[in-house]
């Protein structure tokens, strides 16, 4: 709980104030002055980091939500039930901020409902859009008990939780399918850029590549959130869980790396691996951060046994993931379109503000809702729910 004795002005609050002041001013620029004032986007680079960072990474890093829900609900891995809500709320906040981000990204945001009415089923973006709408709904339903539990009306609470418990599995199943499709389609958006996308990133299997990279990145994100919650939000979880999660990362990253290599050979990108060009550098940076460094680190006993080291390793994975998405959506298109794009401060300010909102929401959710167990004893009774019977037996 927040400490009443804390001073009103702390360094963190000052930083927050700066982030929001900058973000709100950038918002004013975007909506009242115009695109050119708020962004460096141009005809050559029409998407920029709002798509590259906010959308592609926001959604990608939420992938832990469906992976964990699947592990717990569908595969019966009860050990992970305590972190299930964390994963789901991260996903919900991730998707939520992506949805808010669209208000900035779309040229005519007040027409956000058009895709519901005007359909083009040949468009990958159409599928992406529908998956976002449906999966955000699913996440809200999956997450709702955490809020309903806190309602003062007992009978409503019990009635809701009773029904929720019965039908949630259908939503989990739908959620796993929807987000799998959705993660893949974000890559699928770029399949049509054949000839524009640099060969190190173009592939007709961008769907699979995006899917395979989103899962480890999503898990890394959960490791980060869990570590931070334990450290500063007075949350107690079995440290072994962090260790196990990061152990899963290694094979997942390796699978991605192998698929990426085979795919590059298949699509004829191998010849570009060592050319003296800026793209080559970005490519190897991405591979180092997302694949090589984490795999080496996670094979060291010392790293695996230290939560803080696992936290930093996960952070490297997340950075590698961001590098990959930015490479696909920005770096890879620059050469063909002669864009020379670097984001304007206001583009970054808005993205940072939206991310900060998500982090703050996460913090307050952990503090005021039962997202994570606050003591190890509480764990058994409360967090194992119906399956507690099995675990206790």
């Amino acid at each position: 709980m927040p400490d009443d004795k804390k001073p009103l002005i702390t360094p963190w609050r000052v930083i927050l104030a700066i982030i929001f002041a900058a973000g709100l001013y950038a918002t004013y620029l975007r909506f009242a002055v115009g695109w050119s004032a708020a962004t460096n986007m141009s005809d050559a680079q029409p998407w920029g980091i709002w798509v590259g960072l906010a959308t592609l990474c926001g959604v990608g890093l939420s992938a832990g939500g469906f992976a964990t829900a699947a592990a717990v609900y569908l595969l019966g891995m009860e050990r992970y039930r305590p972190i299930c809500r964390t994963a789901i709320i991260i996903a919900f906040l991730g998707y939520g901020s992506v949805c808010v981000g669209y208000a900035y990204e779309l040229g005519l945001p007040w027409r956000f409902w058009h895709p519901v009415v005007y359909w083009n089923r040949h468009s990958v973006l159409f599928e992406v859009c529908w998956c976002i709408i449906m999966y955000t709904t699913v996440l809200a339903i999956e997450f709702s008990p955490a809020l309903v539990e806190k309602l003062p009306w007992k009978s409503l609470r019990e009635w809701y939780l009773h029904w929720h418990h019965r039908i949630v599995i259908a939503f989990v199943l739908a959620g796993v399918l929807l987000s799998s499709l959705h993660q893949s389609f974000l890559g699928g958006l770029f399949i049509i850029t054949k000839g524009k996308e640099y060969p190190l990133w173009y592939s007709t299997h961008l769907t699979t590549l995006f899917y395979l990279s989103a899962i480890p990145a999503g898990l890394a994100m959960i490791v980060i959130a869990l570590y931070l919650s334990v450290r500063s939000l007075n949350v107690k979880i079995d440290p072994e869980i962090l260790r196990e999660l990061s152990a899963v990362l290694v094979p997942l990253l390796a699978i991605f790396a192998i698929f990426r290599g085979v795919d590059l050979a298949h699509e004829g990108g191998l010849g570009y691996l060592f050319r003296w060009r800026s793209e080559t550098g970005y490519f190897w940076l991405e591979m180092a951060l997302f694949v090589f460094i984490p795999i080496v680190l996670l094979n060291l006993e010392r790293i695996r046994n230290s939560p803080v080291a696992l936290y930093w390793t996960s952070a490297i994975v997340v950075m590698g993931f961001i590098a990959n998405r930015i490479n696909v959506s920005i770096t890879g298109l620059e050469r063909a379109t002669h864009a020379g794009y670097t984001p304007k401060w206001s583009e970054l300010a808005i993205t940072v503000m939206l991310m900060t909102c998500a982090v703050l929401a996460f913090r307050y959710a952990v503090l005021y809702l039962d997202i994570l167990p606050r003591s190890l004893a509480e764990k058994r009774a409360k967090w194992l729910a119906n399956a507690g019977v099995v675990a206790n037996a």
Partner: protein
Amino acid sequence: MAENKKALLIDITKCIGCHSCEVACKAAHELPGDPEPNLSETAFTTVQEHAGKNIRRLCMHCEEPACASACLVGALKKTSYGPVAYDKTKCIGCRYCMIACPNSVPKYEWSKLVPYVKKCDMCVNRVVQGQPTACAEACPTGATMFGGRDQLLREARRRLDNDSSYVQHIYGEREFGGTSVFFISDVPFENLGFTVAPAEEPLPQLTQAALGEVPTVVLVGGSLLAGLYWITQRRREVALAEAAEKASRKEERN
């Protein structure tokens, strides 16, 4: 012969670089300003110099347009007359069409608070009334010709056959899966800044292959997951039953 599907044929050898097409286009679409060096939200066409030749730039009006397949609300559509037209009342401003077009033709009104996509519409309003495009009408040398698509292809072929100084290639006949704007030239197209077509098949087909997998993924994935869930439940029931049995045996022993 009144052929329904129209097209443009641009003979680079005949273009004198007078910019009449560009001026006429601006007038017909109420676009401001003087001739511009590049396509922009106020220049649907432009005349550039490459290797000493005058090259018109404009939308190719692909037979299977990448832009239209990308547009999630169907604001861009290939009409039966040939033009790829834009319905500004549907557009939400996602700009995916700009990413998708292999020639980066669609431009955006970045300076406006209510911005729309801008590109050559092959004068669709004139074409449906049986008139030629403004640029073709204005061209003093016949370098830009308007006509039925098949008829223009035949004409282009005839010129290539009769004069061997032409590069024996009609740009647009097969590029991007075929287009409604054709170029013929006496200098290789690679040297004139033309996009080398990235694929034999129209680009939207690449996407369709990926989208076509959706029903399979949903069906197979769905039943797989449901099966896994069933197994999990079954295991749990067995474990519960065993636990209960163990407990009752314990009681008996006591």
